[in-house]
């Protein structure tokens, strides 16, 4: 029987989680050195202990995120995973599934993502791409001046980068809440599981 989640997907998902958590934690520490808004992130939930450590973690973890993310995009396209599992849903389908989910009437079928899930996953993939591009613009405003200009300059790139992070954190909150509500989806993402058709 086929696993619910094939091993490349599981491996890349957890490597991505490691990279994202490291990037967010160190990014918050970097943000604190020159906050964009009248608040800072509590030291205890940042990574790196000081600006130098945080920048080093951030610039190390970005390689994992990008290499892993590019592998995921290639694998997802070539294996047909995107076509089979992540076909972009229409607004009507999202609305219908959202209403059903809010009434707790949306059954979870192992190995099949509902329209809300697909919308969320596609959104976070797009946010990841946006975070990487705006990060490059913040990192290299001279060498990659065209990218910096695309986002409206150095300062605007910092805002875009911040909001991309905020969007990913928002996704994570929903993502983790859904896993907490339907905990039986977690083990297949770790061990693979067995695809036995729809499970109610």
């Amino acid at each position: 029987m086929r696993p619910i989640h094939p091993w490349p997907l599981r491996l890349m998902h957890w490597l991505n989680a490691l990279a994202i958590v490291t990037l967010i934690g160190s990014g918050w520490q970097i943000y604190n050195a020159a906050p964009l808004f009248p608040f800072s992130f509590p030291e205890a939930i940042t990574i790196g202990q000081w600006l130098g450590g945080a920048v080093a973690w951030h610039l190390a973890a970005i390689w994992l995120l990008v290499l892993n993310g590019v592998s995921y995009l290639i694998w997802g396209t070539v294996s047909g995973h995107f076509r089979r599992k992540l076909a972009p849903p229409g607004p009507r389908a999202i609305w219908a599934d959202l209403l059903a989910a809010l009434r707790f009437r949306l059954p979870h079928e192992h190995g099949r993502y509902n329209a809300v899930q697909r919308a969320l996953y596609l959104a976070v993939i797009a946010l990841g791409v946006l975070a990487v591009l705006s990060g490059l613009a913040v990192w290299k405003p001279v060498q990659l001046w065209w990218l910096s200009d695309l986002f409206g300059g150095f300062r605007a790139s910092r805002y875009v980068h911040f909001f991309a992070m905020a969007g990913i954190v928002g996704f994570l909150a929903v993502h983790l809440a859904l896993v907490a509500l339907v905990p039986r989806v977690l083990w297949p993402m770790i061990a693979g599981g067995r695809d036995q058709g729809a499970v109610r």
Partner: protein
Amino acid sequence: MSRELERRALLGRALAFGAAGLLTGCDYDNLQHPDLADRFLRAMSSWNDRVQAALFNPHTLAPTFPASAITRPPRFNAYYDRDQVRVVDGASWKLELSGLVAERRAWTLADLRAAPQQSQITRLVCVEGWRVIGQWGGVPLGWFLRRIGADTRARYVSFRCADGYYSSIDMASALQPQTILALDFLGKPLTPAFGFPLRLRIPTKLGFKNPKSLVALGVTNVYPGGYWEDQGYNWFSGS
């Protein structure tokens, strides 16, 4: 089956342990005793140096700005407070030269004033994430290096400052046409807080790579490091 499970459990624990070890690492808090995380971060940082050197295009100019964009008042920044700025005596000051240069004679302020000058209104981006725009004027470093017969195939140009600060840059960035030994700031000679009598102004690198109140310049193939770089900031730190 149970073997397989055991193997997996072990692997899982090893991975979790490794990740925890990395994340709780010392993060450069004691570089005399680098732990595993420090060594990993050092290796990644020198890899990032190489990537940035490859990405560096000597013909790409840093953006320039109109005078109306200049940040006023200018922002002071150093590794100490403003009331601790050391004041250099311009009359007796000299820029000492060392390393792979043919003419080691030290330069006075008058010597530097007599050299060709260049003025620029450029952006200084700090590693902390803020940026200011200022106007600097002075001697192009590329002109200076050729004038003193420096070996421009050497890897590094190093700088020492009156306040104990030090830093170093790669030769390609040193020869970029906007890299200057600045004498003037906002149309007047530099003030002590902004690097009197001479500072490096290099708009293709982060702010901390722009050392102030220079007293010595060297050309070398031996990695010279820097005040912040030795504590863990990325060495190349190109913009």
